[in-house]
């Protein structure tokens, strides 16, 4: 029989205002095995922990139940306290009477009863607890960064600077990401490429950084400190070691009518191409879908003109398998498709564009060489209308529920730059709210209004109607004047909502990292662990975690790197002893547990067993404790009840249920 101590925390008034803690003490003291029960205002404080330690010594306690907040908050605290007093830390159970009880109930009598029941369940579990010993696992001192935008580059640089090897995997032919497509950056208006390319060059030149472009993560197995990752290096059709980046192949390529992704499809590129001038690596790739040689077998012009002999039509995808201790996800974002917003005529008129398309138009390397012109007729627009919140802050199925955060600022930037460069152009911005929290952000927006004469109108645009003469009629609200406005525009720019990169769902599944309903990766704690995934060893960098601008992205990338470095700096990790094991007398070798195991921790052995005197060889499930994460999927799947989880055994869980139902 255990000798159990129950410690009930008031948590100030967080618990005590709704739960009668004295009553919980009184009721739990009568439970089987309980030899000590007390309450205290803050159990997690030094004094509270001292009470637990003293009681363990004085009453020879063998098990502890702390009725307090969620075990996610203070389980580790109380386990350490118990360990200090010489008790095995796995003999401590938490009854969550705050998040699961006091915070969600109003009626004191009912809440108190529930707290007693939760405590009773925990006591029933401690009665069946056994001391557990954690194991150790080794840490591979190498990090993987998925995504080569500013977030991935910054994380990689920071990890590499700390002395660890880093691999960046980038899906596209060059690193640089979304930031490489931007013209100027707010609120200082410095050129995006001018501040990004030095970072790209630094990453490429860093002896600790290895960049896989045109590559994708294909498979991830293992666990924190010891991930094994398969990377598919897609066939570039160009030998990177021979290519000099002279660009003759792209010039001579006869297949030139392929949408240029880097310019958002606003102009065309050849089938063999380097995405942009500052690309890293400066090595072209053959787009096999559009290449005449791959489509018809006839052509081969690039191969003939390549002086270095770098073109290789036979190149195959290559799988690289590598081990990593930590993984940083930096998969970034895209703008939402606007095909459901017919009222804005995006698909009807070439002169209705997204803000990202405007970035390319304003950029010297863009489809119009940086001249602001209408894509329909090449004329300079005299009246430009900006529409904010297109698909952001929507509760319908067309848009996103969240604020995309960056649009107010980049719209102010665009408006200001246009008024600066083309002062005879009228710029009107329709807004719902102007949101500019950030250092020098509101000042920036006010400059657009006060110094550059941008016309801000509070009210949304209802529709954009293309006119026969090629202009656009914009119908909008002016809510402050309580008027409906009809105005002519030559160009309409839509601040489309941003959303996580489409691939993030696939990557999150491979990493067993959780994502929310908007496909943003979830943090381990919204406030206190914002750059870590709940899955150990996975860190979050950039917009894959939530909308953010460049300075925030860089800050988060650094934070994610620090967390990864903290992990890589350890030689060994303590493993969770709450792992599964199978009872060889009950296991019938059906393989169901291996099928559901997300960590590949279960294998089978032909094993000699002695079943009540009968010796025979049976096929039996064996759990690799280093791989098992203790999720329990196998235990609920096992039809014969052979699988069990240490620290959460079937017996213990049923005892808890019994205690609750008693």
């Amino acid at each position, binding site marked *: 029989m255990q000798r159990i101590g129950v410690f009930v925390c008031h948590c100030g008034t967080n618990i005590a205002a709704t739960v009668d803690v004295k009553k919980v003490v009184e009721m739990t003291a009568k439970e089987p095995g309980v030899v000590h029960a007390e309450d205290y205002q803050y159990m997690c404080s030094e004094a509270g922990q001292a009470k637990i330690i003293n009681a363990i010594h004085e009453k020879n306690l063998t098990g502890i139940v702390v009725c307090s907040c969620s075990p996610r908050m203070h389980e580790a605290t109380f386990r350490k306290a118990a360990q200090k007093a010489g008790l095995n830390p796995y003999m401590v159970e938490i009854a969550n009477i705050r998040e699961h009880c006091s915070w969600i109930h109003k009626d004191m009598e009912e809440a108190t009863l529930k707290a007693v029941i939760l405590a009773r369940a925990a006591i029933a579990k401690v009665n069946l607890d056994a001391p557990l010993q954690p194991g150790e696992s080794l840490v591979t001192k190498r990090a993987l960064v998925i995504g080569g935008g500013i977030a991935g580059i910054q994380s990689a640089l920071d990890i590499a600077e700390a002395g660890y090897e880093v691999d960046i995997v980038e899906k596209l032919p060059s690193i640089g990401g979304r930031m490489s497509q931007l013209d100027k950056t707010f609120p200082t208006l410095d050129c995006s490429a001018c501040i990004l390319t030095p970072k790209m060059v630094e990453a490429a030149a860093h002896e600790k950084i290895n960049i896989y472009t045109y590559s994708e993560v294909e498979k991830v197995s293992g666990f924190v400190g010891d991930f094994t990752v398969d990377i598919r290096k897609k066939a570039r059709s160009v030998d990177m070691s021979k290519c000099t980046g002279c660009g003759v192949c792209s010039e001579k390529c006869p297949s030139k009518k392929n949408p240029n992704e880097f310019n958002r499809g606003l102009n065309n590129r050849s089938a063999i191409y380097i995405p942009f001038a500052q690309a890293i690596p400066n090595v072209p790739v053959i787009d096999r879908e559009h290449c005449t040689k791959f489509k018809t077998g006839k052509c081969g012009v690039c191969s003939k003109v390549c002086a270095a002999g770098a073109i290789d039509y036979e190149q195959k995808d290559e799988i690289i398998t590598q081990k990593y201790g930590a993984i940083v996800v930096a998969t970034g974002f895209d703008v939402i498709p606007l095909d459901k917003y017919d009222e804005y005529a995006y698909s009807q008129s070439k002169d209705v564009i997204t803000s990202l398309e405007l970035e390319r138009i304003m950029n010297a390397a863009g489809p119009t060489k940086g001249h602001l012109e209408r894509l329909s007729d090449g004329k300079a627009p005299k009246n430009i209308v900006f529409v904010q919140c297109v698909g952001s802050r*929507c509760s319908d199925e067309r848009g996103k529920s969240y604020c995309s955060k960056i649009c107010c600022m980049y719209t102010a930037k665009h408006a200001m730059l246009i008024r600066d460069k083309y002062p005879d152009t009228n710029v009107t911005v329709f807004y719902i709210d102007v949101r500019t929290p950030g250092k020098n952000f509101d000042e920036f927006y006010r400059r657009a209004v006060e110094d550059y004469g941008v016309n801000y109108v509070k009210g949304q645009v209802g529709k954009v109607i293309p006119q026969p003469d090629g202009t656009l009629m914009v119908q909008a609200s002016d809510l402050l004047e309580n008027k409906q*406005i009809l105005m002519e525009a030559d160009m309409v720019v839509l601040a489309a909502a941003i959303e996580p990169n489409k691939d993030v769902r696939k990557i999150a599944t491979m990493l067993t990292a959780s994502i929310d309903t908007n496909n943003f990766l979830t943090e381990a704690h919204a406030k206190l662990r914002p750059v870590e995934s709940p899955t150990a060893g996975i860190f979050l960098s950039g917009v894959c975690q939530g909308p953010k601008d460049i300075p925030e992205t860089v800050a988060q990338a650094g934070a994610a790197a620090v967390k990864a470095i903290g992990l890589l700096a350890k030689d060994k990790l303590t493993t969770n002893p709450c792992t599964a094991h199978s009872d060889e007398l009950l296991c019938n070798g059906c393989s169901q547990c291996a099928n559901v195991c997300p960590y590949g921790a279960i294998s089978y052995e032909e094993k000699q067993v002695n079943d009540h005197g009968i010796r025979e060889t049976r096929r039996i499930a064996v759990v690799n404790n280093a791989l098992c994460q203790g999720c329990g999927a196998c235990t609920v799947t096992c039809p014969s009840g052979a699988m069990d989880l240490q620290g959460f055994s079937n017996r213990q869980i049923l005892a808890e249920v019994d205690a609750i139902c008693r």
Partner: protein
Amino acid sequence: MAYTYGNTQNAAERIKEISGVNPLKCMKCGKCSATCPAFNEMDIKPHQFVTYVQNGDIEALAQSKSLWKCLSCFACVERCPRDVKPGKLIDAARQLVVRERGQNYLTADEIPELLDEETPQQLLVSAFRRYRR
């Protein structure tokens, strides 16, 4: 029993119930008024309708010209980003008024006499659909 529109929270609740709309979801973007073809004819504009229901000022809505100027084109219903759909609120307010006259139900015989130039036909169709006995 007849409604007093002045007894307002009750009438506002009825409008919410008939329309199935939660006016608190409105973020006051004004897209409804921006998209409304009858905007200039209305004394209470579509986006203001939401606030009137929020404030329980139903008497003013019942007296409003807008009830009979709304074309029931449902452009605002289609385009509202917040699922508030002012067109449905206007529709509900109209029905409240019609119901008051017709004692909560509508028979096919009554329709011809309701037909006039002012009343949108869609109102009669939807009223008949809901209130025939």
